[in-house]
């Protein structure tokens, strides 16, 4: 189970209190009625589904109830950082740990070990 730092409560809480809420930094279109089908598909259905570093929204549902953003590695599930909604993407160059070397996933033990 993950421990997730809520930037509003300012403490690490159990994953059970949180819900993932999709990709972060996606601006909801303001001209929904004028969009083409292609544009709507790209906004509504298509996903980058990133393997590796991704930016996503989380909600502290069974806590303060607020949405915030997180930078997470989807291979190791490690949270690099969490930050309040509305803030720009943080500079991760100083934060990025070597997760694949330390976590025993298939990726770490089989793929890269070859």
């Amino acid at each position, binding site marked *: 189970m993950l421990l997730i730092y809520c930037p509003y409560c300012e403490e690490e809480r159990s994953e059970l209190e949180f819900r993932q809420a999709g990709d972060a930094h996606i601006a909801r279109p303001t001209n929904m009625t004028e969009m083409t089908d292609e544009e709507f598909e790209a906004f509504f259905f298509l*996903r980058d589904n990133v393997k590796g570093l991704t930016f996503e929204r989380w909600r502290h549902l069974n806590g303060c109830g607020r949405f915030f953003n997180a930078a997470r590695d989807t291979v190791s599930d490690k949270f690099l950082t969490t930050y309040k909604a509305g803030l720009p993407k943080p500079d991760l160059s100083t934060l990025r740990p070597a997760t694949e070397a330390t976590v025993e996933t*298939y990726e770490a033990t089989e793929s890269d070990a070859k």
Partner: protein
Amino acid sequence: MRKYSVFAVAREAMRGHRGWEAQWTSPEPRKEYDVIIIGAGGHGLGTAYYLAKEHGITNIAVLEKGWLGGGNTGRNTTIIRSNYLYDESAGIYDHALKLWDGLSQDLNYNVMYSARGVMMLSHNIHDQQVFKRHIHANRLNGIDNEWLTPEQAQEFCPPLDISKTARYPINGAALQRRGGTARHDAVAWGYARAAADRGVHIIQNCEVTGIRRNPDGSVAGVDTNRGQINAKKVGVVAAGHTSVLMEMAGVRMPLVSYPLQALVSEPIKPIFPCVVMSNTVHAYISQSDKGELVIGAGTDQYSSYSQTGGLQIITHTLDAICELFPIFRRMKMMRSWGGIVDVTPDRSPILAKTPVQGLYVNCGWGTGGFKATPGSANVFAHTIANDAPHKINAPFTLERFRSGRLIDEAAAAAVAH
């Protein structure tokens, strides 16, 4: 290929089992193939098999990053059923179910398909209404599905607790008698052996790192860690990693990858005669021929490629199992594992051509792809061979997310998502 038979077993028994040959070879990749399939799971190997058997295309390579059948084919709970609500889904899943029946003979490989019945438990009036709607819809599509009273359900599955004081009381069940299980590894191995026998190259430890394109945009081949391999047609059958591969060709997919877990108990003598699912309390259980109880848990709530999952997901499922079957409360769980499933917005698969000429994709099976293995492989082979979909998979396009013609099993598939 030497045929497997009772006589072969007897002959080998006489000479100390020294005559068994390798089930498939591991050739060096050629420079060029007619078709490349990315992913040597059941769906990918099956596609190669049906391309060779039904469409006369044998110059095929199946490329696999890890080992054969090591992805979701080797990680699922082997449940087979076809009682889906919508006509399109009923068409493809029942096509698969008809192929399961006879697959062992077709492949000359015992895939241990056992039509022992899949029973879905109803716990409340809403379950009952939904299941009865399913039963009627299924019957209109010629798919068997029947309603059982709690007493009939217990008769069919004796360990089931149907007492009124149970934590999750049961007010009935839907039963598909043709549903059941098969041996997952044998499915991958059987398809691999039969495909290799027809000249298909199965190349393991070969990771695709890029998809090459011609100046006109069509597919030219793939880059791998074992060099460049050319082909005019490439089929991506990579489950949870589909988005990663399709991104190499510049195609963004309507997919999110989640970990899905399963676990098995210590092996015990035969006690559990069928497959039982409960969507309301989320539990899937059957007993393998080795004697282990095979239990399916849910997906984690967040997207991930970790091939593992949270412990709370497993314990939640075991809570439900122990309430439904008090007899199992003191059993020990032996192993648990996770696979990465690719989930579409409408929870229906995509078996289709893509905007890139010569690139085909078979993905989006989400939490329930194993049951469809033969049917999926069969119609996907047709799609690749003819550069046009079979009428069974024609609705399962990539474009449906643009046109809005969704096959919305999300609420209808009779499983909790």
